[in-house]
């Protein structure tokens, strides 16, 4: 069965430091991958997505992610974290994309805290 794992439940970084959030997926075919961010009391905001092509994907708010098929990974990175980046981050894979059976499988999330 398809699944998404995010090994880090909680990460704390200092403002201005670099960030990498890990994501591993289990999916037989070429995956459609997303990273979402969720602030407390808010809905999901799409940071970036990967469907095909260049394996390094640029997103909003200075985030990027790299798809590595050999490692089944889609890690999220940011070179310099801002205090406003403190939030919950979800990695997700689309099961059977662009069919009538598509659905999103989410990882458990990584909570990011930023120290001033």
């Amino acid at each position, binding site marked *: 069965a398809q699944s998404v794992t995010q090994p880090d439940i909680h990460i704390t970084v200092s403002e201005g430091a670099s960030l990498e959030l890990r994501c591993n997926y289990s999916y037989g075919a070429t995956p*459609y991958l997303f990273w*979402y961010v969720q602030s407390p*009391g*808010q*809905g*999901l905001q*799409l940071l970036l*997505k990967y*469907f095909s092509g260049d394996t390094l994907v640029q997103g909003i708010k200075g985030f990027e992610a790299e798809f590595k098929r050999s490692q089944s990974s889609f890690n999220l990175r940011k070179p310099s974290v801002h205090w406003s980046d403190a939030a919950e981050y*979800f990695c*997700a894979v*689309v099961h059977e*994309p*662009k*069919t*009538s*059976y*598509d*659905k*999103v*499988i*989410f*990882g*458990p*999330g990584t909570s990011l805290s930023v120290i001033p």
Partner: protein
Amino acid sequence: DAGVTQSPTHLIKTRGQQVTLRCSPKSGHDTVSWYQQALGQGPQFIFQYYEEEERQRGNFPDRFSGHQFPNYSSELNVNALLLGDSALYLCASSTLRDTIYFGEGSWLTVV
């Protein structure tokens, strides 16, 4: 172009009551899916509607039901509410030529 819209934004219900949540898909989308996000967890797939029929379903009891209308909008109904049904309910829409988009969600509190 409006994205996925959901209503109401927030609501409070009493245990044992019934609730109806509504979703309008993104323009051009014909498939609507519902997800439940409990506190501290990632969203979980409830079910999906396509051509006014339930196409697939996650691991949720029959108390959770839905409907899709000819204009592709959808409702999620939950009967006999339990305290554990308190969550953010997300609607997502998609189509064969486009990927999945999520709405802002409906926050349900059961007291």
